C-alpha cells in the first residue's frame, strides 16, 4: 500500500515537471494552456490518488476524492474562459514559419 502510493506520487510529480518545462518553453498562450492542462488533469489526478491510497479508507479519502472531482469540473471551465478571452481580444495563434 505504501509503496503503491509512493509510485503514484512520483508519477504525478513527473507529469507536473513536464508541464512546468512546457509552460516555460512553448511559444504562445494557446500552447501553454495545453501544458497547464497536462498538469491539472493527469498530474493532480495521480498525486491525489496516491495521497488517498496513503490515507486509507475513511472520511478523509472521500474528501480527497471530492477535491479531485472539484478540480476536474472547475479546471476546464477556467481554461476555456481564459482561451476564449484571448481569442476574442484578437490574439492570433502561433504558427510554424513556412520557410
Amino acid at each position, binding site marked *: 500500500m505504501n509503496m503503491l502510493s509512493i509510485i503514484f506520487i512520483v508519477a504525478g510529480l513527473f507529469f507536473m*515537471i513536464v508541464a512546468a*518545462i512546457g*509552460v516555460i518553453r512553448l511559444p504562445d498562450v494557446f500552447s501553454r*494552456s495545453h501544458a497547464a492542462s497536462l498538469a491539472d488533469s493527469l498530474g493532480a489526478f495521480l*498525486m491525489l490518488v496516491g495521497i488517498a491510497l496513503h490515507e486509507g479508507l475513511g472520511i*478523509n479519502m472521500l474528501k480527497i476524492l471530492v*477535491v479531485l472531482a472539484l*478540480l476536474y469540473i472547475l479546471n476546464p*471551465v*477556467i481554461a476555456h474562459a481564459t482561451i476564449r478571452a484571448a481569442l476574442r481580444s484578437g490574439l492570433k495563434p502561433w504558427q510554424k514559419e513556412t520557410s
Partner: protein
Amino acid sequence: MKTFLFCVVVLLVILIGAFLYRVLQGPTIFDRLLGHNGISTKAIILLIVIGISFERVDMFIDISIGYALLNLVGALAVAKYLEQKGASIE
C-alpha cells in the same frame, strides 16, 4: 516517509517558482492569468501534502476545498472582465 514528503513539498515549491516566472515574464496578460491558475492548482495539492506531513489532514482538506472554490470565482471574474475589455493592456 517523512523525508519523502519533505522532498515532495520542496519540488512543488520549485514548480510554483517555474509558474511564477511565467506570471512575472509573460508577454500578454493571458499568460499571467494562466500562470496564476497553475499556481493555485499546485497550492491546493501542496496544502494536502502539508496536511499529511503534519498529520492533520481533516483540517487542511477543508481549507483546500475553500481555496479551489475561491480560485474558480477569481479566475472566472478576471477572464470575463478581460474578454469585454480586450487585451489593450500591454
